[in-house]
């Protein structure tokens, strides 16, 4: 939250360090180091490998590709979270979005560039519609959103898996995948990298979220609902409509990530490939870490993309399994939920020492 009073830069830094976020991240890093020592690895070398592997020339492309998915899903979960709603159905919404984009890409009679746009829109529409279904479950039937969105996710994944294995399966292939999209039906990539225009789309979405959150009445309504839903209701925010709209936006973003995944390499719907990396949970973790604030969500997504990609190079150089990075993510959130922070005396003492 922006403070009305002006504060000095030093106080600003102190406050940032004193926030539970800083404490949680540091605690995660320290506990991760203990794990590394426990497995006989050198923590400095391992963390060094994480950074050099993800931010170095070889890894940055991979990090930005991962960031596309992580940030997209983090935004998808941040939008409802800002109002205190948790959408756990990101996997299902993303997979349906990917499938809708694949079907559109394969069967659209339009020229390739228009087909790409249509496929992106189809992916967003599929995700939005499915997420709206979860919102309807809460509004109409009183099934908590947390549960309805999650339970709906499984049949969606099964349905897409069925389509990829039977009616839409590539003839003659041993893999559960659709045919490759026609030539030109793909998101343009930057140079020879794997980074596509998809990253730009997600960044634009983040900017739009920032603008809505900071500058519009709708964003204000969302934030007020998150801070105090009863007060917001009293002030005239219509809760059911808000839930429906937020979930539709959330699902559209998740569907967009699925569509981007299909319109990038390998240019087809491959069963399980969208969900295998657990982007939904990483995205949720990033959104929680940032408390759904727009800028924070971008930073947290970047942090986790670095961890995820760097984990692979850590595994190569130190033979510590990359799953450690998943452990780190969860530890950060455990500490954050407990809202632990550095005590005030810790800072006072340092000031005296200086």
């Amino acid at each position, binding site marked *: 939250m922006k403070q009305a009073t002006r504060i000095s830069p030093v106080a600003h830094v102190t406050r940032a360090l004193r926030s539970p976020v800083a404490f949680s991240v540091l605690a995660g890093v320290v506990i991760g180091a203990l794990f590394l020592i426990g497995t006989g690895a050198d923590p400095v070398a391992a963390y060094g490998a994480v950074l050099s592997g993800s931010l170095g020339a070889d890894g940055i492309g991979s990090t930005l590709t991962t960031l596309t998915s992580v940030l997209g899903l983090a935004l998808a979960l941040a939008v409802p979270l800002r109002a205190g709603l*948790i959408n756990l159905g990101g996997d299902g919404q993303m997979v349906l979005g990917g499938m809708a984009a694949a079907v559109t890409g394969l069967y659209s009679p339009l020229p390739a560039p228009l087909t790409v746009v249509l496929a992106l829109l189809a992916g967003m529409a599929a995700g939005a519609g499915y997420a709206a279904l979860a919102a309807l479950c809460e509004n109409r039937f009183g099934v908590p959103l*947390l549960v309805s969105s999650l*339970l709906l996710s499984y049949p969606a994944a099964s349905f897409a898996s069925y389509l990829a294995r039977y009616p839409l399966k590539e003839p003659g292939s041993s893999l559960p995948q659709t045919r490759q999209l026609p030539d030109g039906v793909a998101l343009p990539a930057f140079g020879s990298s794997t980074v596509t225009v998809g990253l730009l789309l997600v960044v634009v979405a983040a900017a739009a979220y920032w603008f809505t959150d900071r500058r519009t009445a709708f964003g204000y309504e969302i934030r007020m609902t998150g801070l105090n839903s009863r007060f917001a209701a009293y002030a005239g925010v219509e809760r059911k409509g808000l839930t429906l709209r937020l979930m539709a936006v959330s699902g559209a973003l998740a569907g967009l990530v699925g569509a981007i995944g299909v319109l990038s390499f390998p240019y087809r719907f491959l069963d399980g490939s969208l969900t295998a990396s657990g982007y939904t949970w990483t995205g949720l973790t990033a959104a929680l870490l940032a408390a759904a604030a727009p800028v924070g969500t971008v930073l947290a997504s970047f942090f986790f993309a670095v961890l995820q990609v760097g984990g692979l190079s850590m595994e190569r150089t130190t033979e510590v399994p990359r799953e450690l990075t998943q452990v780190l993510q969860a530890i950060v959130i455990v500490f954050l*939920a407990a*809202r632990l922070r550095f005590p005030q005396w810790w800072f006072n003492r340092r000031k005296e020492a200086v």
Partner: protein
Amino acid sequence: MFFDSDLLMSALRALTPILLAALGGAICERAGVFNIGLEGMMLMGCFTAVATSWFTGSPWLGVLAAALASAAYSLILAVGAVTLRADAVVLGIALNLLAVGLTSFLLRTVFGVQGTFDDPSLAGLSLVGGFSPLAYLAWAAVGVAALMLSRHVWGLRLRGVGEAPDAAATLGVSPVRYQYGAVLVSGVLCGLAGAQLALGNVTLFSENMTAGRGWIAVVAVMLGRALPLGVLLAALLFGLAEAAGFRLQGLGLPQQATDAAPYVVTLGALFLTTARRRRRTPSTSSTSSPSSTSPSAGAVT
């Protein structure tokens, strides 16, 4: 015939892990702690059971270790949600994530394999009358929990703590102690559920092998209104859906349809019960479960 005794038997086998975990969730719910970390606690139980059984050669030590490990794991929720008053929903989600990461990490560091640990010399639980002993324990636990909650002074105090913690404290009942107890009991039951899943239903450990069963257990708590007998019925419904799914698969239905069946059936049952409950009590806008209130704004400041 489609509905025969075989179907019922496989339904009863499928429901055991859900039932154990859901009973734990119900006890937490009654004590006023919303526990959606059941999935993670079960998964920790699965891994501990398999690892202990493999190293000691005794599946029973595996069961014991799973109960202890999950109880220790559940302490994170107890300390966080009860002592530090953190958001139980966020903590539960984090516990589920942590369990997936931690068990995959340990699978690779301890056994050096990725994906699945499946060794012929791994000892599973022996069956007694077609069921693992943990299945009988689960049924007995339903009766014990029902009697405790309705008759015994501990159960009454537990409910008091869940419904009116301040009033309970005034009467000299420590809410903190009862809530810690409830969370630890849920940890033990989830550990047993995990042991049943990894050493009873099958004899192996694979990454994320709980595959949403902990979430089904959370739903079973809601469906059964946190009553032990209600939870039993809800778990039975899930077991029947899973067993019927397998049966239909044998009749030529694709696996994806049967995979989805338990979730669809559970969701359908949730619709029917909450809609009916709402009609009966139109004045209250929310259901009896605290989960229906959105996660507190504390997470979103």
